[in-house]
């Protein structure tokens, strides 16, 4: 097992391969920073240039790009509350409040080092899974996937933070919004009101931007001042990196969740980081989730980078993309003359193993670059809102318009932005809505295919029962935590704590 690893390392470290890896990483950082663009767009742009390259070089460039968009997309989401890609949505919940407390640098440093750790764990898992993956993936059929989606939905309770009824309602609205457009199990359109724009459903990016980015920017303008509330920066990179070290087990746990979810084709890339966030926020110790808890940054970001390693497994071994970016990667691999699929392990073993090294190097490189840049980028949070907001608004609108290049994107953004703002004013939790939306289509799909294939007998499948028990435990502990939080919320509302008192150090 060691020998192929060393052979692959020498393949990755060849100067000509390294150059392309660095090129891919730098490109990836840029597309990651730009909200609305992500790995999918970045890789699509690379596709025409890939043909004719040596497979190792082409793979290094494409994977380098794909691996780091999840690292740099934290810049807009944590600093401005603008969700970059689908993998940085949960980061907003705690990253943005921390930034408002002036801790932008801490958030970025924590996020980047968590991303690095997650990416490395994901690469490590990838290495060992390459050889054992087929049987594991083949174990998770439609019924098991459906149960995992239910597990994701059970996070809604804990994401509601003391407003259980509002949270549940938001989750249901999310499920219904997810049902708009082409149905997953029948060639029919639902809730489209004969508007062609709605035939493809509401784009996830528009929903996330509307729910989170628009309300934040409106409130920022109303309050005046700058994103960092007192105009001063109180965080440091050291603090962020130390926080990741303090919560190292959380990093490992989240990375494993992220890798595992990424590993299973059909769950989508944003599910893993939401699950990691949900699981982390069930802690009883000093729970400040949603108001600026550094653990709310560390958990989702280590999960999303670890997810890449996981998602690469089905992509390489089954030719089934584990995420949107890897769908494009698959196209690029065939352009390089590689045949992703079962024969990959025999024909191209060094190349397959070299992907592990590529992921590792790309993550290290991206972390260094982003950490270096964070010093300067964080100063944006000191810019007065009146000057910053127009630019951010333009970014939000352009990002939303990338979804389908139809004026409906902008109208939807406005409508959802208003809804998001109202929810924010009413203190309704918005995260459950997004989780419901993300899980709506896969939940319907796998419930339908399970029942169509097995009737009711899938309910007695051992693995289904195991996951069912896990869901019960999560729900139960969530309810208990909920009671505790509701008590504290009541106390807090009586005491009326000033908002920016108390730092976010943990």
């Amino acid at each position, binding site marked *: 097992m060691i020998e192929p690893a060393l052979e692959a390392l020498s393949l990755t470290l060849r100067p000509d391969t390294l150059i392309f890896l660095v090129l891919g990483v730098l490109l990836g950082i840029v597309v990651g920073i730009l909200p609305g663009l992500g790995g999918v767009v970045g890789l699509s742009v690379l596709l*025409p240039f890939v043909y004719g390259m040596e497979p190792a070089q082409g793979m290094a460039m494409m994977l380098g790009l794909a691996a780091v968009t999840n690292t740099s997309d934290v810049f807009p989401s944590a600093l401005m509350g603008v969700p970059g890609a689908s993998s940085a949505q949960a980061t907003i919940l705690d990253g943005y409040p921390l930034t408002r407390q002036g801790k932008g640098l801490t958030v970025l440093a924590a996020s980047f080092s968590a991303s690095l750790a997650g990416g490395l764990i994901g690469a490590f898992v990838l290495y060992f899974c390459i050889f054992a993956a087929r049987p594991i993936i*083949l174990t998770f*059929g439609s019924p098991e996937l459906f149960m995992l989606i239910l597990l994701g939905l059970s996070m809604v309770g804990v994401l509601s933070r003391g407003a259980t009824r509002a949270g549940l309602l938001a989750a249901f609205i999310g499920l219904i919004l997810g049902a708009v457009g082409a149905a997953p199990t029948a060639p029919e359109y639902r809730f489209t009101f004969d508007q062609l724009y709605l035939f493809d459903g509401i784009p996830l990016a528009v929903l996330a931007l509307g729910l989170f980015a628009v309300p934040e920017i409106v409130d920022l303008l109303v309050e005046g001042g700058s994103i960092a509330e007192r105009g001063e920066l109180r965080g440091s990179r050291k603090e962020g990196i130390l926080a990741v070290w303090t919560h190292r087990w959380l990093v490992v746990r989240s990375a494993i969740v992220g890798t595992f979810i990424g590993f299973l084709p059909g769950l989508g890339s944003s599910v893993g980081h939401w699950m990691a966030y949900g699981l982390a926020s069930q802690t009883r110790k000093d729970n400040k989730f949603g108001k600026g808890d550094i653990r709310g940054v560390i958990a989702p970001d280590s999960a999303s980078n670890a997810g890449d390693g996981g998602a690469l497994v089905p992509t390489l071994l089954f030719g*089934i993309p584990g995420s949107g970016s890897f769908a494009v990667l698959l*196209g690029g691999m065939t352009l390089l003359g590689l045949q992703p699929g079962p024969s990959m392990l025999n024909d191209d073993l060094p190349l397959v193993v070299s992907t592990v090294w590529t992921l590792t190097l790309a993550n290290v490189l991206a972390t260094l670059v982003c950490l270096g840049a964070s010093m300067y980028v964080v100063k944006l949070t000191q810019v007065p809102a009146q000057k910053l907001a127009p630019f951010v608004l333009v970014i939000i609108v352009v990002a939303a318009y990338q979804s389908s*290049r139809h004026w*409906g994107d902008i109208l939807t953004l406005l409508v959802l932005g208003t809804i998001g703002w109202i929810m924010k004013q009413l203190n309704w939790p918005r995260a459950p809505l997004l989780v419901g939306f993300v899980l709506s289509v896969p939940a319907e799909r796998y419930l339908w295919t399970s029942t169509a*294939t097995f009737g009711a007998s899938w309910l007695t499948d051992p693995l289904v029962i195991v996951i069912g028990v896990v869901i019960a435990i999560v729900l139960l502990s969530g309810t208990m935590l909920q009671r505790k939080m509701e008590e504290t919320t009541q106390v807090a509302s009586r005491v009326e704590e000033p908002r920016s008192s108390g730092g976010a150090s943990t």
Partner: protein
Amino acid sequence: MTVRRSRKTRRGSVPVVGLVAAFGLLLAACGSGGSSAEQENGENGAFYQEGDRVEVVVPFSPGGGTDTLARIVAPHLAEELGVEIVVQNKPAGGGVVAVNEFINQTEPDGKTILFSSSSNHIPPIVGQTGVEYAFDDFAPAAGFPIGGVIYSHADSEFTEPEDITGPNQPEQINYSGQPPAGGELRILLMFEMYEADINTALGFEGRGDARLAWEQGEADISYDTTPAYLADVAPLVESGEAVPLMSFGTVEGDELVRDPVFPDLPSPAEVYENAFGEEPSGDAFEAYKALSVATLAMNKGIHLQADAPEAAQEELAAAMEAIGASEEFEKQAEAELGGTPLLLGPDVENAWNAMAEVDSESSEVQWLIDWLAETYDVSVDEMSD
């Protein structure tokens, strides 16, 4: 997202390509004639001029099959036409919005080229709501055909092609697939034609997920289009885990014959003959053939509007012929097309016209619509693809 024309010549058959392009230009110059052409065309008589910016519209998301193919074609097209090409993805409305816009709102000035797929071709055939275009609105320059193979587990009850026909099937067939629309209808129609007893689970997101369900044993039978079959299933055939049963065949004239990429696999018509002792006929078979043309022979296409300048149409067609003849392109596109050559010149027009003839009033389409409603509870008015 811009592909600039490279001044450096690319590897490969440059002289030949140059010759073909020159011939194309000649054709274009002769063909266009008239006063307007002289004004439209620049100094050297060509419609497309160095430095022109041409938009290629892809009505689907980046990274999909159509997008990947368009991005492989784009640099070649930039080189052949001597222009700058920008690929634009407009995925709204299942691909219908972008095509409506291309036909009804975009100025037909030759500067916007459309890349279409079978998801754009089927809606007008079945008369889907929201479609504001018809086949004769397009000037197709090339078609990209694709084939496919139906396969099963080597250790299952279905190892001979005839085993999936009603008279010979040893037990009910479990089949996992995508929702009953578009290309997925082909195999469902085939089961209908074979009077087979099937249990379907139609809800998978793509063929990849459906294939995984087959590998997991949730399904007995599965299919893939040629590129995916070669990459993901052929290795399983080699290792003795899977057996290919038949190809989808290709329509030649009015006959359903073997796919030339898989000369050893029977066509669905042959399998029918072996099982039923007579040639296939009837509505299911006719509908199958119509769908074959729409989803396989013309799986993807590249077009201008029918009222675009003649010179532009001819230069684009000539450019596509040059690209079709380029070995470099053939290699690049192999993974997307599975080695099937492009439909060019009169062939693409024939295939396009064949689709146009299958209008929503014809008996096989009416039968298809009724059958979908009865068997799968699908109403075509609300159909998505």
